[in-house]
């Protein structure tokens, strides 16, 4: 970790108290445009410094006290120790983008290739690579970590991976020409959902996580349409999704709508009036929509909170004494802000170029 800020990071006046539980916590933001992990005090937004992490950092996760950063422009991920020591872990394949954790290991989708890299977060070593469909993107973890579901942006499949055996044990065809972006599994693990960006639809599929692993036969690796439970049209240019016990939400970035379904993909509502909705967050009793083309969060119930700029990615900050707040990355404006849906922006700080998916350490 560097000793201090590498650039003049200024912050706007604090508009609210962060509470004691924020003290000592750090927001770590991969900044894609300057190849650094930028650090800020969660309580105040004070810049704490930048850590060089490799080319095009996009997402981060934390394990065993370390922060792992996916650097899409490299064939490696970067681990940052609490003491600031930086370790490069080779993946062998270009484009590490998303992390998933299971079986005590990290699984990283190598989005410019056709593999999940398996990393031991303790030894900081590449353990294995698992072949999956080309250009894997998001990886969903089934409850208990028994299965991983990796969506392929090129082969139109969701690959089913045994994280213990490090093997692809099945492949679910989402449709000809499908470009699978978001993948999620229901909280009970009984079904999965995949967003097909190219056809603007969501597909529900059956999982095998309810089966006994000792008796259930491993499916053939070829795409199998049988697990498909149904599909539904969503708004244009969908990317991500949110799945709860009884609801599935899919933002349609292209036409400013959020589709709400029941678990069987029965349409419940189409929420309109957004500019470019990208994600949803449950805060209190409401769902709040992050908008990449409007400087505000708007709830599905119609409440609005202004933000300093449009937000592309946000990270919930869970605190026991208050409702969740969000660290919002204003990708196009080189800023991050801590946003409270009751009080608005708590603080805003300038960042190195193109801040992306943050973590709270």
């Amino acid at each position, binding site marked *: 970790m560097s000793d201090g800020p590498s650039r003049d990071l200024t912050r706007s006046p604090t508009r609210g108290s962060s509470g004691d539980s924020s003290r000592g916590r750090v927001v770590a933001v991969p900044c894609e445009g300057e190849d650094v992990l930028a650090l800020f005090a969660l309580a105040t937004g004070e810049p704490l410094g930048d850590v060089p992490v490799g080319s095009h950092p996009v997402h981060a996760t934390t394990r065993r006290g370390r922060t792992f950063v996916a650097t899409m422009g490299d*064939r490696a991920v970067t681990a940052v120790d609490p003491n600031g020591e930086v370790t490069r872990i080779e993946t062998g394949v270009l484009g590490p983008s998303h992390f998933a954790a299971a079986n005590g290991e990290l699984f990283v989708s190598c989005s410019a290739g056709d*593999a999940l890299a398996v990393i031991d977060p303790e030894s900081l070593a590449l353990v294995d690579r698992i*072949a999956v469909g080309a250009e894997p993107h998001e990886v969903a973890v089934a409850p208990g970590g028994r299965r991983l579901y990796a969506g392929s942006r090129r082969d139109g499949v969701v690959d089913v991976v045994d994280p213990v055996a490090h093997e692809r044990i099945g492949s679910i065809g989402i449709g000809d020409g499908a470009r699978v972006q978001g993948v999620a599994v229901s909280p009970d693990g009984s079904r999965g959902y995949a967003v097909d960006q190219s056809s603007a639809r969501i597909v529900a599929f059956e999982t095998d996580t309810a089966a006994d692993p000792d008796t259930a036969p491993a499916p053939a690796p070829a795409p199998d349409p049988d697990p498909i439970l149904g599909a539904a049209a969503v708004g244009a240019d969908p990317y991500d999704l949110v799945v709860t016990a009884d609801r599935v939400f899919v933002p349609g970035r292209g036409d400013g709508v959020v589709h709400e379904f029941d678990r069987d993909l029965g349409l419940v509502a189409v929420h309109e009036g957004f500019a470019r909705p990208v994600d949803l967050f449950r805060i209190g009793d409401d769902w709040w929509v992050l908008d990449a083309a409007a400087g505000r969060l708007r709830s599905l119930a119609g409440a609005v909170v202004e933000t300093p700029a449009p937000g592309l990615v946000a990270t919930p900050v869970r605190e026991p004494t208050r409702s969740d707040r969000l660290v919002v990355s204003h990708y196009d404006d080189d800023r991050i802000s801590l946003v409270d849906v009751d009080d608005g922006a708590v603080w805003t700080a300038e960042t190195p170029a193109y801040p992306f998916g943050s973590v709270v350490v």
Partner: protein
Amino acid sequence: MMSGNNSGDDRSEPDATRRGLLRAAAGATAVGAASAAGCLAVTTPADIAAENEVSGNVDRLVGPGWLADNRADVVVLDARDADGFRRERIYGARRVPLDAVSAQVPGEGGLVPDTDAIAGAFGDLGVSPDDDVVVYGASVGSRVTRVAFALAALGHAGDVRVLNGGFGGWNGRVGTGSRDRVSPVDYDPDTDASAWVTREWLAERVGSFNGDGPGLVDTRVPEAYLGAAGSDALDPDHDRHGHLPGAVNVDWTGNVSGRRMTDPGDLVRLYEVEAELDRDSTVVVYGDGNVDPTSTWLTLTALGFEDVRVYDGGFGEWTNVEDDRGRHPVETATNVVIETDGSVGGGGGGGDFSCTG
């Protein structure tokens, strides 16, 4: 086995034959006089031969003049197909069947050149390990370079050279009809396994190519390298499309300009400046099969690269590997496609310029 590379930019008239050039030569005297008067111009065989002479710091390639001066001291091998060979050839040349010199066998780490079969083929042609050899084709395309590589794989002790400009640049004595009788010899190879690498060799180095490890060049067309969906360049027999992780793409046809080797200065710029290959380090080349990449093998070797090797199994072996594909990943995205403007002329390949020698 061979890729579908067909740049097809054959500015040198693929149907031109030795006789056509001789006809041009027959009129050269009269026309040449007119040319001197500034009325007309004609290209004579001597002009063509002169165009194909080799200058500069380039190894392995020789021009027609060199061959004419040394014809009696070298074995001349014709890498073209049988029809072209029967029609016309350099007098005394012996034709090398492409399938014989591209034969493979499974080795411990994947497919490797079948040196026994290759040695047998050269032995049948009466080629001995210490013979100095000149290989030619319709151009300096990949059929020619595969023959040269096959000899290198055998550890051939004699010098192996390639005729720049191919048969079209030759203005010496020609032969025609059935092949001349030769006395077969027992070619006892001193196999040079450092001429090639295996799938296993590459798998152990995934992640290091063009970085801390060896250079790696994908010699196919960019569409195949990138696995461009719907492209005709994609081999339908391949389970996966794309390229080996970290490989830089330089289409092999950029090595050739018409029938000749591309200007060496341009090649140095292409490989050392744009592709950033290190001439002092190991560089591996591969394609869909084991023929086309030998063009880049010969080119880099001719430019003075110290250790150039061919992945003989090629992308087809890598991408269709049955076991542990996680250890044999394929990438589909990169930003290191090197633009080339090469063309492989010379015809003789039934319209497919990919393997016209």
